[in-house]
């Protein structure tokens, strides 16, 4: 717990080295907050409430910090970590603070944070706005030898969603590491983001894509009942036919059963369903 009431000071008397550029601005009318002369929030204010807390009371310090921020993105946490690492402050409980934001603190997290903190500011802003998690940046751990700026540019320029940009990052890292040419991986001028992602997946999973395409073509040639819709679809490690039927009365079902028996016979004669 705080040992003494906080002292109101001019911010110039405190250390602002932890200014990690939090996204949500501090309320204008409130003073900044510091612990033991170290500003934790409200870095652009002119006056500060400085709390004196035993530096060994890490839980109180972490709790105080947490109370100023309802949430912090991975980028904000990474920037905070990098500010702490660059400072000579040894008592600031960065591990407890990460835990309080539901991020497990360990070497892996630290490594990812260092990578995030070195990302171009544009991508930091983009990923922070889309609430990328620490784990979403994991592909960067293997990407130290490759250039990804062109892909970052695509993410920002095309205003991609979190889901698409996170998937695209991992696919691009893997494909570049496999040895694919960057030009082959960048989106085509008229290609929308869904099609781009689909194309990246096709390059990353060539055999499965080709098997699915072949099965799809074969499936389309089967004698499906006129009013049904059949679609080749993949659900994780399984691929198969999704069939939609419209039944208005029991007779419809009988007709479908008869027609589907013919489909079944045709399937057993060719393609991946062929009986051996």
């Amino acid at each position: 717990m705080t040992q003494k009431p906080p002292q109101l000071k001019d911010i110039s008397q405190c250390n602002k080295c932890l200014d990690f550029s939090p996204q949500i601005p501090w309320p204008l009318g409130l003073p900044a907050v510091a612990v033991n002369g170290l500003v934790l929030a409200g870095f652009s204010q002119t006056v500060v409430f400085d709390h004196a807390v035993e530096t060994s009371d890490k839980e109180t310090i972490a709790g105080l910090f947490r109370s100023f921020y309802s949430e912090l993105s991975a980028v904000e946490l990474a920037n905070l970590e990098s500010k702490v690492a660059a400072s000579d402050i040894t008592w600031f409980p960065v591990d407890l603070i990460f835990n309080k934001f539901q991020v497990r603190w360990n070497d892996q997290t630290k490594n990812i944070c260092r990578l995030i903190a070195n990302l171009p500011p544009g991508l930091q802003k983009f990923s922070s706005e889309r609430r990328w998690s620490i784990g979403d940046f994991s592909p960067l751990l293997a990407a130290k030898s490759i250039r990804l700026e062109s892909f970052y540019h695509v993410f920002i320029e095309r205003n991609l969603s979190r889901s698409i940009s996170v998937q695209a990052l991992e696919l691009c890292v893997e494909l570049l590491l496999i040895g694919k040419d960057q030009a082959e991986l960048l989106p085509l001028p008229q290609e929308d983001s869904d099609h781009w992602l689909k194309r990246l997946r096709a390059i990353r999973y060539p055999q499965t894509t080709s098997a699915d395409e072949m099965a799809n073509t074969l499936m389309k040639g089967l004698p499906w009942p006129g009013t049904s819709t059949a679609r080749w679809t993949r659900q994780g490690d399984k691929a198969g036919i999704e069939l939609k039927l419209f039944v208005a009365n029991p007779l419809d079902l009988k007709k479908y059963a008869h027609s589907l028996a013919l489909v079944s016979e045709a399937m057993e004669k060719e393609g991946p369903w062929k009986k051996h």
Partner: protein
Amino acid sequence: MEKALTSLISNFEKVWIDERSRGSRLALRINELFPSDKIEYTSGIPGGIHRGEMSAAQFNQSKKQLSIRPFEGYFFKRCPGSTQKKALNCCNYYVLNLGQQCNMNCSYCYLQSYLNTPTMVMYSNIEKAIDELREMASLHAHLPYRVGTGEVIDSLSLDEITLFSRELIPFFAEFPKWTLEFKTKSAQVDQFLDCEHAGNVVVSWSINAPQIIESEEHGTARLHERLAAARKCKDRGFQVAFHIDPIIWFPEWKEGYSYLIDQITKLFRPDEINVISLGTLRFQPEQRHIMRERFGMKSYVTSAEMFPSEGNKLRYDSALRKEMFNFVLNQLRSKADSGKSYRSFLCMETPETWISTYETGPMQNPQLKDYFRPLPKVNSDLANIS
């Protein structure tokens, strides 16, 4: 000292011995084998328990540091596959964990997403493990329990140091209905070949196509070395088994696995092999990051086409799995000798894959049902439930 043992010892940069293990048989053996400047006595776990996944650097380092300490929980547990009974068909396999981590370095190793201690660990209180087994035996000596020691550590690659095999084999000689299974990718067997046994010790090898051993199983014994060690064990009356697991796709996979089956069947008749288990590549989704960081994307494992599957692991497309299983099984069937076939089963696979491969589930297969018949729960299971 033998060259293999010297090389094993030189692999470790440091050995930490917990004060509580001082005077244990294992600690004495370590003191006998390792240079004293590599040994340090400590209290607790050096580096502490790690929360969450380890970094690639920590994982690499953990292979070079050995920690000797007593184990405080239950040694004897069910195989993790049995916790997914709804999704997977699993055999009645029990595990006795006498340590964790491995001195070899396979790209697909599941320990990469499992371990949380920054050192390799060997437990110094094997007598407690034997007490647990004895307690179980007092209740169920007549039931066919299969107990393996190679779940979170290779059973034999460090056995020349620990000599655990020489304590377990005599124990299992007292309980002939039970089976002890060592599982290894090493060729280290000479240290126990002279032990008296009751014919209920299975020495098993995880084996693979030579191309996969070369590209993915770093630091392991070569195929011919593993098979030669297996032959040596068979000739001394031990049972042998093989785990062709994980089967990994690579451009010449059919030739590779066909060659593997040829090599096995040239050296062993069907009645000389206890069982051949098959499994295809699988791993936890979060493991892909550390594998990518440690092995790049030129590996057949990291570059594999994997999809989310039952049990939350990533696996090959189910049609490819079926093709791979059928291919390997057909190769095995083609080697049947005078009507006798090699006994095989699938490890940690879904009921659909079983049925598409064998046309039945394991309980309907007379050769296999003994493996899959439910057995009474053991103490550690009960402890886990409460």
